């Protein structure tokens, strides 16, 4: 079969969600019987928990299947008016975000000038960060500007956040920093 670049783009965009499988479907290959059987086995006896895809802003609803507290499958929620059970290739791989041997699970600390990380206790690291925040705040706090304006702030700390974090995170983050007088609070939403 001869397929030009433009033809391939046309087929993949119309045959689903722009995936290679979409391309195969567009070219007349059907995978339906095999996938239906696999789905049925994977979620047998599983508990279902509603969730949302953490990638783009469309907000596709997902269902998380767990067996004995272990994630076995994540798929689109067929009830969702946004995605009607479908997911794009990234969304279909949410499972791999969780069940992944490369995931970081330990707290690491690097001393000034040191050449390596050290694995440290979570509670110790939290205490140390709190200490550093207090030190920096106390050393740099500005109550009034030279012109007499009351500002009660410090420009010397920066809180930068991503945009796949919950509203509840954003609220606690901005409340924490504004409460301390820190104003440089930014997010992926800026850029």
């Amino acid at each position, binding site marked *: 079969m001869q397929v030009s670049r433009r033809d391939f783009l046309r087929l993949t965009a119309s045959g689903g969600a722009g995936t290679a499988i979409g391309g195969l479907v567009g070219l007349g290959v059907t995978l339906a019987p095999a996938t239906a059987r696999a789905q049925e086995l994977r979620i047998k006896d599983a508990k279902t928990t509603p969730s*949302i895809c953490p990638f783009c802003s469309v907000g596709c609803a997902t269902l998380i299947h767990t067996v004995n507290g272990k994630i076995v499958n994540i798929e689109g929620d067929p009830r969702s008016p946004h995605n009607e059970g479908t997911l794009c290739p990234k969304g279909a791989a949410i499972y791999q975000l969780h069940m992944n041997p490369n995931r970081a699970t330990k*707290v690491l600390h690097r001393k000034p000038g040191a050449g390596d990380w050290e694995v440290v206790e979570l509670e110790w690291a939290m205490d140390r960060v709190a200490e550093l925040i207090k030190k920096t705040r106390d050393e740099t706090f500005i109550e009034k*500007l030279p012109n007499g304006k009351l500002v009660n*702030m410090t420009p010397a700390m920066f809180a930068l956040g991503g945009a796949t974090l919950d509203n509840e995170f954003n609220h606690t983050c901005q409340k924490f920093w504004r409460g301390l007088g820190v104003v440089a609070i930014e997010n992926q939403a800026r850029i």
Partner: protein
Amino acid sequence: MGSNMAECHPVAFRWPMKAKLNGAKLIHVDPRFTRTSAVADLHVPIRAGSDIAFLGGLINYVVNSKRWNSDPFFKEFAVNYTNAATIIGDDFKDTEDLDGVFSGIVKFTEPAFWPYNGLEGRYDNASWAYKRGPKPLGPATKDLIAKRAGPPFDDLVRSLKPGPAEKDPTLQNPHCVFQILKRHFSRYTPEMVEQVCGSPKEKFIRVAEMLLENSGRDRTSAFAYAVAWTQHTYGVQMISCCALLQLLLGNIGRPGAGVMALRGHAAIQGSTDVPTLYHSIHGYMNAPSALRPHETLRDYMAAETSPTSYYGNTPKFLVSYLKSMYGAAATAENDFGYDWHPKILGDHSHIATFAAMADGKVKGMCCVGQNPATSLNGGATRLAMRQLDWLVVKDNWLTETATHWYLGPEVKNGEVKIADIKTEIFFFPSTQIAEYDGSFTNTQRMLQWHSKAADAPGDCRTDTWFYHNLAKRMKKLYAGSKLSRDQGWNNLTWEFDFDPGVKPIYPGEPDALKILREINGYQTTDAKQHLKGFGELKDDGSTTCASWIYCGCYPAPDQNMTARREPDPPGVPGAHLKWGWAWPANRRVMYNRASADLKGNPWRPS
């Protein structure tokens, strides 16, 4: 325009594809021929960044077209639902009169206390104001501020009300908004568009004709854009220009119309609404600033209240927000703790802050779920980070930001020695989406709840856990301080622990629903009495509400509207009002009064 929707928002792109099967026309204006172009009815190439010329050309074509001038719908919409008929004051001068700038451009002077405001070009827009009749009689704003009048702040808001704006419903007055707009865009001819944008004239005219054919009483057209607009320094102007075109075409506030932002991330709308952005506090109120007349609570209200719109309720939004910050310590006597709230010095945005960091003015940084070492001039970002005293990275993976001090290109090629980097660095592992509770706000302003399904491994903790547990530590470290600078922190409320007897999902994890409750708001005397909508907000401290726009998402302890998953039955072209919750007030189409004529009848009888 400015988006490759088929590949970047593939699941949402199913809907324009379905509309196409129903006869909708799909146009893709983009420098590249992508998968989106491949299935569009028309792909129009455009020189990257020249979108304003293209949109301006469409505006010029539309207002001079036969259809726009013969179908009464367009003028009816423009006269009644836009400010096209409003007369502008005589002092306004357009770019044609002033060699490329509008009247009121302000010469930039850098404030010595924060020399990073260089990008803040500014107009004094006094000369752009409407021509108005006499102001209503009453006490002057400055006297009310001096008298410390209110709460309630009704008198203050009333004193801001201007006289009625003059209008010309025939749109003929040369100083009316419509005529100014028509003159301004008259130079944007199809030939000029072709020259500036590189888009063939014939294709440009086809776009204009298709838009006109598919807009009106019976049909609507929508624009969708993404970061290929927003990542220009003049992205705001592109989007405003598009909104102008859509208003002229009657495509605002109606189902299937509008200017749609295809935002990039799951909660990027949420992080703009619940602002982890320096320039705004909850619900799009401007952050108190040392550069604006924000000295006192009343100064802020006088400067920031827009008295002729719903923002006339700004005192209610602001006082309820301050109550969410400082709780019982925020009283009418101390202006609800306004003085404790920090003021910005100017530009503290991403780039300005990294510039200040490179100069040694930023000592510490907490980076959660973000990887600046690889974005926006990574070299300069890493150079800035090497000047830090301390850096915290919290993420699911060891990102380039976490590893810049030993894997950064400057370190690998020997330019920088590891031992010379004096930064103390922490890495905290994070949970993934299925491992905690919370809400995202999607690109449609819809809040959707997700629930915990599994435990996270090792020391992985939620990002709210991090700030919750830091806050508790900071509370201990400042306990008992009598310094005036510490009073704001010591009075900040922080009550997100699970109720006694309820086991948190991780040791020390905060209750996400209590955080949502503070965002939604409650009666100050009883946190179990949630607010049902922003109409309930008061300016006397009796209501506590962080975000007035989110008010109503959690109207009762047993009603988390964001967790609803009840779609409309099949076959109904429904708005799915019981699926999640969209701000404001679960409205799915903003400014939807414009979806019906003056008598309230839908433009298109069903």
